[in-house]
């Protein structure tokens, strides 16, 4: 019971260390530091257990080995070794303060070995992980077996004492240590929420193998142990029997020799006296030599003279087997002594006879009766058996015919049952024992009884008993049994470990290696090869896997090549959808480039003339890349173009395109776009932005600037989005640069972005370079910046140059006060100018009406609080035969074009009087455009002539 305390202490420490490592700052300590601390702690427990044990035969039975085992198995190899060393060294030096020296060497070695064994097994067998509790118990048991064997080995000089010690210490030490280790592992498992028993499906080969191998080893161990037990038991019996036989035969021989010799001596003397005087009185001789009977036998076997009157000349010695033996023997030898046996003539009488040949033929026979025989022998028998030992503590005792002991001392003449031997059947029948008997025999000295084994034999009327204590008889058996069982445990455990490690090295490690490589292959790394060549099977498996991977690589390469080709076609189709007939007219030019990141991209640009004087242009970027993006791009491009060509305003184009793109857009793709519609005659641009990068605008006399406006939501992103229109007016020489985010977001190998700053700087440095050279130069600059990094996104660039004819000789302007009174002057100016252009009268009139309407409008409404001016500029494009009127005032912002047109189908009664003026202007002119810029209302009208 005392052993429970160190067992519990060990468990408590295991749990404490485990929880501390899991939940406190201890976790952060480096591995080796933790191991050293754990090693020292468990070394302490080991030392404590060493002195806190149970006394047994002068030394202390304890559970010292549990701590190093726990430390090594649960926490790590170094901890196990350290605590084993501490525990072992403590045991060695503890002799100086009173610990037993008997097991000093064995215990020291065993404790160190426990630490080393735990460390080694954890590393070699359990992949440096905590074993299950079953293994913990087994390892503790094996460790204790080694401990016991060491005790034997270090105390070979006194095997029986060592044996006694081991016999008593084995059970408590094995139990204590294995419970301590098993319990500790179970506790840790409980707190780490592990399964107690492994789930069968999750078991690896190593574990299955461990389990099966363990079962086989246990069965083999049991079989060999049983066999050894049976064999040793039989051997011990035979040896004991042999020992008894030797002792009994020895006594028997002495007794027989002595009795034969005495009677033969008597027979010789009787013969001498008879031959000296054949008439001598035979009965006188019997008295003289204290014998019972004398017979003189003729050579033919007839008794011629005898002390027994009834046999003289009437008994033929040949008539009975007992007497015939004498006749037969004495024909070939001079004398013969017969064993004590029943008389031939009368079987109920026991006699011992001896006979010698007479010189003149025949022989003379003398016989003792039992009384005389035993009287003569008893003293001798006592002497023969007195100091005879069987083994160390065994003895021989002789019984007379009544089974009473023929010995000296207190027990003399007592019946055999008085010392505890109840005569078995064979003894009662005066037969020699055919088996080993057992009885509790009372020791004559101290009266204590012990279990003895004995046999007996009847000789010359005596019963010889040889007996030996059972413990002594079976000592060798038990000792060799225990050692052989211990050795077998050790051998099988070693065998188990070695076979397991071998299998692990040869098969499992290789399989893990192959699995790891296969894992990398299935993760997509086809460049790895399997190279396990430790044996033929694995070499061929490696080769097979490698050739499979090679084949796979080839197929993938072929498929990739095919896809590449198809993507190349897709790219051609996509590129062919982008216009390349870049206009380079007198009034504007457009140049654009799209460089896809992959074979097909999601970027696009587009431009087309909506009328003779308006051109639409846009740059767009579809989310995503590859085929899906390209297909979405085609759709978006087509929709936008169709809407644009229907004459919608640019913001309405986006609003409608968004609705269409949202339909059935399950893939969730969207497109950012910046689209402008340029009026070539006025330079006026109306644009819309759907989440796109701000374009760059360069004024003829300035530098590039980002044209930042509030962007609308992306196209295709959400239904119901409405887009605003933005406006700007280009002056001759202005440039507008559209691009996609592939430009500023081009990324270098150092993960830097090209960026808007760099883009602006580049564009400024090359502000006046022709677009056809500028765009490739920009791409080259980006490439140079990006370096080796792959192009991440599509790059699209579009440059619009606005450069209408300066129109010097054909342009004129004049400023008027904005009052209706000035109308005549205005109209005179218009008519005068138009006449100069050679404009037909009819058109002049129409134009004048329109100009009047607009001017009157300005005069009436633009300056509500005072007087202002209105400037009219008239330009004439001779080649295109268009006249442009640009009327500018600084009045309140007012877009006359927004006013709804009057319904001209109504009857006179229903018609309103207002709203006709601008309507007439709209109808008369080929185009009207309003803008409010720099505090000026600008209305531009174009008329063809």
């Amino acid at each position, binding site marked *: 019971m005392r052993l429970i305390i160190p067992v519990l202490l060990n468990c408590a420490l295991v749990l404490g260390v485990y929880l501390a490592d899991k939940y406190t700052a201890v976790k952060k300590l480096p591995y080796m530091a933790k191991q050293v601390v754990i090693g020292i702690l468990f070394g302490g427990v080991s030392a404590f257990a060493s002195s806190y044990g149970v006394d047994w035969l002068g030394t202390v039975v304890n559970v010292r080995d549990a701590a190093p085992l726990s430390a090594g198995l649960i926490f790590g190899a170094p901890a196990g070794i350290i605590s084993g060393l501490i525990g072992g060294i403590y045991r060695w030096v503890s002799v100086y303060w009173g610990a037993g020296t008997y097991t000093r060497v064995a215990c020291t070695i065993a404790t160190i070995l426990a630490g080393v064994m735990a460390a080694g097994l954890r590393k070699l067998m359990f992949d440096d992980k905590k074993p299950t509790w079953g293994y913990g118990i087994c390892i503790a048991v094996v460790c204790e077996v080694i401990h016991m064997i060491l005790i034997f080995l270090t105390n070979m000089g006194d095997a029986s004492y060592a044996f006694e010690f081991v016999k008593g210490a084995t059970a408590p030490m094995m139990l204590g240590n294995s419970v301590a280790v098993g319990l500790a592992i179970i506790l840790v498992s409980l707190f780490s929420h592990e399964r107690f028993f492994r789930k069968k499906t999750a078991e690896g080969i190593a574990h299955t193998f461990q389990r099966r191998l363990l079962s086989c080893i246990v069965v083999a161990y049991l079989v060999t142990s049983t066999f050894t037990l049976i064999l040793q038991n039989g051997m011990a019996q035979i040896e004991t029997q042999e020992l008894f036989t030797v002792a009994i035969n020895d006594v028997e021989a002495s007794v027989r020799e002595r009795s034969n010799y005495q009677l033969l001596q008597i027979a010789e003397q009787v013969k001498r006296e008879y031959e000296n005087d054949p008439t001598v009185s035979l009965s006188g001789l019997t008295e003289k030599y204290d014998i019972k009977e004398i017979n003189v036998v003729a050579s033919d076997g007839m008794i011629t003279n005898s002390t027994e009157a009834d046999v003289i000349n009437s008994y033929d010695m040949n008539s009975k087997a007992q007497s015939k033996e004498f006749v037969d023997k004495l024909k070939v030898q001079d004398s013969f002594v017969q064993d004590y046996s029943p008389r031939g003539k009368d079987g109920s009488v026991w006699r011992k006879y001896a006979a010698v040949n007479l010189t003149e033929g025949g022989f003379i026979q003398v016989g003792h009766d039992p009384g005389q025989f035993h009287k003569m022998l008893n003293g001798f028998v006592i002497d023969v058996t007195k100091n005879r030992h069987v083994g160390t503590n065994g003895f021989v005792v002789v019984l007379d015919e009544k089974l009473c002991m023929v010995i000296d001392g207190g027990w003399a003449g007592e019946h055999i049952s008085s010392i505890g031997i109840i005569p078995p059947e064979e003894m009662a029948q005066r037969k020699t024992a055919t088996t080993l008997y057992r009885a509790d025999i009372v020791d004559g000295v101290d009266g204590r009884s012990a279990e003895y084994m004995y046999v007996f034999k009847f000789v010359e009327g005596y019963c010889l008993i040889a007996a030996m204590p059972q413990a002594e008889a079976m000592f060798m058996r038990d000792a060799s049994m225990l050692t052989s069982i211990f050795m077998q445990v050790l051998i099988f455990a070693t065998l188990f470990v070695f076979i397991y490690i071998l299998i692990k090295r040869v098969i499992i490690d290789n399989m893990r290696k192959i699995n790891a490589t296969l894992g990398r292959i299935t993760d997509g790394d086809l460049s790895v090869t399997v190279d396990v060549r430790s044996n033929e099977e694995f070499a061929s498996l490696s080769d097979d896997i490698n050739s499979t991977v090679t084949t796979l690589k080839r197929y993938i390469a072929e498929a990739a090549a095919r896809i590449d080709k198809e993507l190349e076609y897709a790219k051609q189709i996509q590129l062919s959808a982008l216009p390349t007939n870049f206009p380079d007219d007198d009034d504007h030019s457009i140049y654009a480039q799209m460089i896809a990141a992959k074979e097909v991209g999601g970027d696009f640009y587009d431009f087309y003339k909506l009328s003779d004087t308006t051109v639409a242009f846009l740059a767009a970027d579809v989310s995503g890349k590859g085929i899906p993006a390209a297909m979405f791009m085609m759709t978006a491009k087509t929709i936008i173009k169709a809407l644009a060509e229907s004459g919608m305003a640019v913001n309405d184009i986006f609003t409608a395109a968004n609705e269409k793109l949202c339909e059935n857009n399950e893939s969730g793709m969207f497109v950012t776009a910046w689209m402008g519609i340029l009026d070539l005659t006025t330079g006026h641009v109306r644009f819309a932005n759907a989440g796109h990068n701000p374009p760059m605008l360069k004024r003829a006399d300035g530098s590039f600037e980002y044209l930042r406006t509030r962007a609308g939501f992306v196209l295709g992103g959400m239904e119901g989005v409405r887009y605003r229109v933005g406006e700007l007016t280009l002056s001759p020489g202005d440039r507008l640069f559209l691009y996609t985010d592939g430009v500023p977001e081009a990324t270098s190998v150092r993960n830097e972005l090209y960026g808007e700053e760099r883009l602006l700087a580049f564009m400024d440095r090359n502000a006046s370079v022709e677009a056809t050279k500028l765009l490739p130069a920009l791409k080259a600059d980006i490439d140079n910046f990006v370096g080796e990094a792959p192009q991440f996104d599509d790059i699209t660039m579009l440059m619009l140059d606005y450069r209408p004819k300066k129109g010097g000789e054909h342009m004129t302007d004049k400023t008027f006060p904005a009052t209706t*009174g000035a109308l005549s002057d205005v109209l005179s100016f218009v008519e005068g100018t138009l006449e100069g252009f050679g404009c037909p009268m009819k058109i002049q009139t129409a134009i004048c009406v329109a100009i009047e*309407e607009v001017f009157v409008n300005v005069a009436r409404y633009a300056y509500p609080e005072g007087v202002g001016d209105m400037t009219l500029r008239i330009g004439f494009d001779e080649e295109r035969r268009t006249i442009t009127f640009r009327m500018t005032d600084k009045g309140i912002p007012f877009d006359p074009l927004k006013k709804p047109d009057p319904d001209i189908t*109504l009857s006179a*009664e229903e018609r309103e009087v207002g709203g006709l003026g601008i309507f007439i202007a709209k109808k*008369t002119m080929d185009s009207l455009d309003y803008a409010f810029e720099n505090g000026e209302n600008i209305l531009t009208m174009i008329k063809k002539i």
Partner: protein
Amino acid sequence: MTIEIKKKQEQTIIEIVGRLDTITAPALDKTINTDIADTKHLVLDVKGMEYISSAGLRVLLATQKKMQKVGSMKVINVCEEVMEVFEMTGFADILVIE
């Protein structure tokens, strides 16, 4: 612009020569509403009128609305330029043009 008023039986004929624009239209409006306010059948002879703007149209519309309640109004001798404006603005359907 010059306006000349002629009476012929029940009809009142107004001959307009010149431009009927923002500046001259008020004069025509005044003439129609004061000088010939009681006429039942109005004939606008625009043979000499080569120009009309929305201000003129407004006067024509107002006169048309008034005359169709009390009698009739017609416009005669419309030149091509003016006719274009009438057609452009839907006045060709409102006015009686001969």
